[in-house]
């Protein structure tokens, strides 16, 4: 009831604004709010500000493409498209973006629409006008202090739908090239796809790699004083059984990066996965100090720790550059933090109660 009432208030306020002085004859009144917490209509001309965060972890997403476009129109009664004004930028280390206000527009044209698109590989794109899941109208976009929750991309999601969703613009098209083959394969029937964005898919509790470690865990252990850009690794997208989290050290080489890969499988398959990892990584030494089984590995400038929690069907591989993890103990300590989180989040397979929150 409260929600309905608040929407009614918003509606009433917007109507009052619409029939009043808010309408600018060269710029239509915006179909979005000025800020998330106020009922006033925003300005189609901008400026726009907001913050982009990972929908799972709420960690800021740095380096995401921010593409904005104002649609122009001219004429009366028989109007026609009259071009567009574009802005291309990206989110900063804190996930924030700022789109400057629209400048001058050609004489005789009017601004009819504004669309903001946020895109980063490994995530489902965000549009200010539509939702990806049901393609319905987005009602929560705001001109200022907008919050963008980026859902992680999963292999079973539809690339054909995503390419349609993302739309165009040269900058965007360049970033979405990698999706074309999969999109085409879907239409050929060679690749199944789903558009289900609901978390907690599959059996059991929803746990992903991003929940196992955060940047403060790393900084507390390694005393690193820089910042991280976080998000899924770009090699393999998340699936129902696999997820990853990349801590990319800002302005530093890869030897400062940390990555967590998590597999959730049935116990037999988890054992196989663990053995594959232990057998394929160079310089592996069995330690068995974490969970049921664990190893430590070193290759060039990267240290890694893998472990198996057989009752939970969990395999984790944590890698850390040698500038970040200067000793093997550092990477082992971070792996122990991740294991502690797993025990809190997940119950062993077959038990009726989940782990504590």
């Amino acid at each position, binding site marked *: 009831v409260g929600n*309905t009432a608040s*929407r009614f208030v918003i*509606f009433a306020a*917007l*109507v009052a604004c*619409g*029939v009043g002085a*808010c*309408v*600018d*004859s*060269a710029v*239509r*009144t915006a*179909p979005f709010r000025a800020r998330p917490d106020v009922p006033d209509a925003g300005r189609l001309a901008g400026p726009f500000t907001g913050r982009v965060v990972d929908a799972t972890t709420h960690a800021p997403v740095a380096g995401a493409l921010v*593409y904005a*476009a*104002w*649609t*122009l*129109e001219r*004429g*009366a*009664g*028989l*109007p*026609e*498209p*009259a*071009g*567009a004004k*574009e802005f291309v930028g990206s989110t900063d280390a804190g996930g924030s973006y700022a789109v400057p206000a629209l400048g001058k527009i050609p004489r*005789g044209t*009017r601004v*009819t*629409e504004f*669309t903001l*698109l946020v895109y980063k590989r490994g995530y489902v794109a965000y549009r200010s*006008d*539509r939702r990806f899941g049901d*393609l*319905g*109208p987005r*009602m929560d976009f705001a001109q200022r202090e907008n919050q963008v929750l980026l859902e992680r991309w999963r292999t079973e999601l539809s690339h*054909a739908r995503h*390419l*349609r*969703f993302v*739309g*165009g*613009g*040269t900058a*965007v*098209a360049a970033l979405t090239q990698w999706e*074309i*083959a999969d*999109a*085409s394969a879907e*239409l*050929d029937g060679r690749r199944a796809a789903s558009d289900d964005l609901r978390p907690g898919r599959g059996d059991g509790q929803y746990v992903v790699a991003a929940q196992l470690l955060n940047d403060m865990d790393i900084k507390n252990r390694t005393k690193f004083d820089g910042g991280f850009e976080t998000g899924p690794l770009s090699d393999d997208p998340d699936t129902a059984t696999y997820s990853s989290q990349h801590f990319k050290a800002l302005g530093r080489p890869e030897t400062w990066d940390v990555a967590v890969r998590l597999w959730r499988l049935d116990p037999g398959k988890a054992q196989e996965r663990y053995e594959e990892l232990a057998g394929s990584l160079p310089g592996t030494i069995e330690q068995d100090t974490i969970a049921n089984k664990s190893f430590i590995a070193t290759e060039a400038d990267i240290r890694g720790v893998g472990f198996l929690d057989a009752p939970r069907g969990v395999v984790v591989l944590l890698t850390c550059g040698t500038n970040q993890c200067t000793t093997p103990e550092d990477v082992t300590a971070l792996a122990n933090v991740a294991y502690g989180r797993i025990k809190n989040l997940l119950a062993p397979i077959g038990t009726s109660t989940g782990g504590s929150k």
Partner: protein
Amino acid sequence: VKRSIFASVLATLVVLAPSIAYAWEPETTHAGLAEQAALNSKLHKRLVNLGFSGGLFEPLTIPPADAPALIAAVKLLSPTHGSVPDARGRQAALSWLTAGAALADIPAAHGANHFYDPDTRRGWQKPDRGVIDGVTDRVREAIGRADLPEKGIAAPDWVTAAKNPFNLEAFYAQYGKAVSAKTPGERSRHMASALVAAGGILHALGDLGSPSRVRGDELAHLDPLGAGPDDLGSRFERIAALAHGRLGVPAPSRKIERGRVREFFTATDGGGLADLISRSYFSPNTLPGESRIGSENRPPLARAKPALPTRLNLMAASRDDGTTFRNSAGTCLARYKVDHGVLSFWMDDECMLEQASAILPEVAAYEAGLLDFLLRGELTIAVGQTVVVSGKELGAGTVEILVEDERGVRTSLGTAPTQGATETAALANVGAPSSGTRVLAVFRGLDRNGEPMVATGVMPLSQ
């Protein structure tokens, strides 16, 4: 409650984000309809079959230097809807189709050719807006801010009109060259051009899903929508755009099959889109007229259909907010109420939203059917000592047989005239090529109904 809230917010948006257009909005609704038509037609498979391996997502290029006017027009679209190519003139096949669907309204005067009233068999006629609005229009025209044509070409005629750059002839010409041109680059350009023309044809058809366009209600396209004196358009079509946008346009309800292009628009059996919409829905200025309760007179109708029920619910109509006249599927056709003994009808935003949501899947069905109709021609190729091309339901025309080499270059092996065949029959044959990766055939001519047609066939060659 959710629906009511959405309708309220929608109403707000119509007030706050007034206008666009006199048509389904080109960059949202039309582009979305074209996408749905493509996704639910044989276009993807046909593209793959003809060598555009990415199908609907195959990047196709029209170099700006080859078609400067077209590229300049495409640049007038907003990139956010996915129909603007990059600097090289390159974008996906699907995007070229949606670009055509949006470009059909450029220049603006072409929009007047997207009307057809099956009752009067005429297209757009400039409406009489009364003295004051008429003067305003003339002032606007005098200072060059708008120029409404007196008349338009009826939509079913416009798709074959020579003045239409996106007519059937343009589609078939480009489609044929997309198979027979020598190099992959040329074929890419021709296929992109064919898809632009197809998008324009789909647009002309799709517009006839808007009731005011098929009931002679041009006045409904000059509603003042709020953002200044120039911002005139159809409130119904604006609501459709706000509710569905490009991405939310619903999938086709079914697949429409017709024997001739014109029959998708209008037909003597009443099966055209214009016929269906005209008899099924009212438009804002063709609602039943007022009538006094108690008199013998029924509310006067602008058209025989949709007919009013024998008994209206006058008790419910006496409430302050009146009641609703719905069709058998439960879609709102109009509101009505009795006030001071007078029965009157009107259409509010929520009613329009219901109609748009019911109509769009039908429009998508017609567009998907028309796209399949454009691609209906298929040839069969058998390769032995000779290459034999056969087909069925073809009229007179010519068959060209080509071979493609490993570089993707296609060379004609020969062209032969044919009188066609109603059943599968050999149309042409040539000696088999000594090398190549595949053999292709193109028929250019008429189908058994005398309609223009291009038919294609492909046969891979074993290496």
